[in-house]
C-alpha cells in the first residue's frame, strides 16, 4: 500500500519534467540517431545505408570533421588552461575582501549578458585589416610586419611555433579563441568566487595566525575546497567549447578554406546549406556522444585526483 503511494508520487512528480524532456529533447535525438543511418536530403524518401555516414564523416576530405573537432578541442584546451586560470585568479583576488569587490564582480560579469552579435561586431572592428584597432596600434608602434588580416589567415601563430600540440593553430582560429575566452571569463569567475566565499573565515584566520601568506592560503586551503566547483567549470568549459557556434559564424564563418569550422557550424551547414540531412544527423549524434564522454572523463579525472 505504502509502495503504491510512493510510486504514484514518484510518477506524478517526474511526469512534467519527463514529458518535456522526452518530448522535446530525447525524441528528436532518437529521430536524429535513426536518420543518421540514411542518405537523405530532408525532403524525399532517402536510402538506408547503415553506418556509411559515420564512415564518410571520418574519412571524407571535403567534410573535414576531424579538423572541426580538433578546432573545438583546441578551444577547449585554451578554455581550461587559460580562461579558467584567469577566472580563478580573479575569483581569488576578489575573494580577499578587496575594495570595490562587488563593483568589480558586477562589471566582470557583464560581457556574459551582452548579445554575441554585439560582441562579434565589436571584435570584427578590432580585427579589421584596414582600420581595426590591432593593426592601427601596430602601425603606431612601427611593428608593421606583425600586421595581419586576422580573421582570414591560415598561417600558424608565430609564438606557438615550437609548442608541439599548438604549433598548427591558424591565425584565424586564434582570432576566434581570444574573444570566446574573454567573454566567458566572468561566467566562470562568478562560479568560482562563490566557492571562494564559501570557505569559512575561521579557517582563513587560523591559517593567517600560523603565518601563512595569502598565496599559501589560496593554494592549500581555498583551491582544494572549491574543487567540486572547478570540476563543474571544467565540464561547462569543455562541453561549451564543443558546442561553440555564434562567434565562429560571425567572425570567420568557418573560413578561410573551412579551416575554422567547428562541429556546430558544420552540422548546420549539412542540415540547411548542403541539404544533407542524414550527414547532419550523424554529426549531431557524434557531438552528443562526445560531450557525454568528456563529461564522464572529467568526472573520473577529478575522482582519481581526490584519491
Amino acid at each position, binding site marked *: 500500500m505504502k509502495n503504491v503511494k510512493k510510486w504514484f508520487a514518484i510518477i506524478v512528480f*517526474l511526469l512534467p*519534467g519527463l514529458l518535456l524532456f522526452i518530448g522535446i529533447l530525447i525524441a528528436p535525438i532518437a529521430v536524429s540517431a535513426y536518420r543518421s543511418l540514411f542518405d537523405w536530403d530532408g525532403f524525399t524518401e532517402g536510402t538506408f545505408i547503415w553506418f556509411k555516414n559515420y564512415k564518410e564523416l571520418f574519412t571524407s576530405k571535403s567534410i573535414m570533421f576531424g579538423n572541426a573537432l580538433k578546432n573545438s578541442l583546441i578551444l577547449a584546451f585554451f578554455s581550461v588552461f587559460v580562461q579558467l586560470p584567469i577566472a580563478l585568479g580573479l575569483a*581569488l583576488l576578489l575573494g580577499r575582501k578587496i575594495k570595490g569587490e562587488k563593483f*568589480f564582480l558586477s562589471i566582470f560579469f557583464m560581457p556574459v549578458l*551582452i548579445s554575441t552579435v*554585439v560582441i562579434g*561586431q565589436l571584435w570584427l572592428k578590432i580585427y579589421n585589416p584596414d582600420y581595426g584597432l590591432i593593426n592601427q596600434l601596430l602601425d603606431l608602434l612601427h611593428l608593421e610586419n606583425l600586421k595581419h588580416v586576422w580573421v582570414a589567415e591560415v598561417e600558424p601563430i608565430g609564438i606557438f611555433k615550437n609548442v608541439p600540440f599548438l604549433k598548427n593553430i591558424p591565425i584565424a582560429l586564434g582570432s576566434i579563441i581570444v574573444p570566446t575566452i574573454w567573454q566567458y571569463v566572468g561566467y566562470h569567475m562568478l562560479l568560482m568566487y562563490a566557492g571562494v566565499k564559501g570557505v569559512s573565515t575561521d579557517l582563513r584566520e587560523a591559517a593567517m595566525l600560523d603565518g601563512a601568506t595569502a*598565496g599559501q592560503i589560496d593554494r592549500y586551503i581555498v583551491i582544494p575546497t572549491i574543487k567540486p566547483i572547478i570540476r*563543474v567549470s571544467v565540464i561547462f568549459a569543455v562541453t561549451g567549447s564543443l558546442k561553440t557556434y555564434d562567434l565562429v559564424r560571425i567572425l570567420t564563418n568557418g573560413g578561410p578554406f573551412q579551416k575554422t569550422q567547428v562541429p556546430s557550424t558544420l552540422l548546420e551547414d549539412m542540415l540547411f546549406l548542403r541539404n544533407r540531412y542524414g550527414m547532419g544527423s550523424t554529426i549531431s549524434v557524434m557531438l552528443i556522444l562526445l560531450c557525454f564522454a568528456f563529461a564522464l572523463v572529467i568526472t573520473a579525472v577529478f575522482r582519481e585526483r581526490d584519491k
Partner: protein
Amino acid sequence: MKKTDTKAVIKQESVTEKAPKPVAQVFIWIFLIFWTLLNLFPIYFMFTFSLKSNAEIFGENIIGLPKEWLWSNYSTAMNTGKMWLYFLNSILVTVAAIAISIMAGMMATYAITRIKWKMSKLTNAFFMLGLTIPIQASIVPVYVILSKASKVPGLNMIFGLNRYTTLIIPYAAFSLSMAILICTGFMTEIPFDLDEAATIDGCGFFRTFFKIILPLMKPAVSTVGIYSFLQCWNEFMFANVFISDSVHRTLPVGIKELSGQHTTNWGPIGAALVIATFPTLIAYLFLSKKIQASFIAGAVKG
C-alpha cells in the same frame, strides 16, 4: 599575449600579497582597472555604434563618439515591424519558460532526491544528458512534433505552431537539465529530518513538497532564473523556424528584420541591440547583489 601577461600578474599577486607591498598593490589595481575597462568597452561600443551611420561604422570612425548623433536610428529600429510587441513577446516567453522549467525541475528534483527508490540516480543522469544536446540538431524533429500537434484537435489549443507555447515549451525543456542540476544542490541541503517530521504529522509526499520543501527553495528560483534567462533571451534558431506570424515573433528574430537582402543599415541594428540589452543590464545592476548571490548559490550547490 595579453592573456599570458595577466596570468603572470595574478600569480605574482597571489604569492606576494601577504605583506602588502605597495608595488604589488599597484599591480593589482592596474590589472583590475585594465580588466574593468576591457569589460566596459563593449557597452560603450554598442551605445555609440547605435548612433552612427554606415559610413562611420565602416571605417570613418569606428570607436570614437559619433560625429553626428543619429537618434533617428532608434526610431527606425522601433518603427520597424512591431518591435515593442517583439520585446513584450520575448519577456513573456522567457519568463513563462523559466517558470515552467523551475516548477518541473523542482518536482523532478524532489522525486529524485527526497524519495528513496532504486532508479533515482539513473534518472538524474538521464536528465543530465540534456546538457550535451546541441540546439541545431533538434530543430527539424521538434518542428515535426509541433506541426503534428497543431493538427490534433484539442491539443492544438495549447500546443502547436505560432503560439506563445510553441517557444515556451521547448525553451523550458532545454532549461530543464540545468534547473535540475541546480535544484539538486539546493534540495540536498535541506535537512531530511523535516520530511520525517512531516510524515509523522501525517503529511503525504504532496503536502510535504508544497508546504515544506517548496517554501525553502526560494533562493533556487532566482538562480535557475538567471541560467535559464541566459539561455532563452537571445535564442534565435527555434524562434526563427517555429514562429511564422509576426504577432508571436520574439526580439532576436525581430532585430534581423532590420537587415535587407543586399543592403544593411547597421545603425538601427545597433539601436535595436541596445534596446534588447540595456534593460537586462540595468536590471542586472539593480539586482546584481541578489543575482550574484543566487548565481553563486547555484554554483556552490551545483
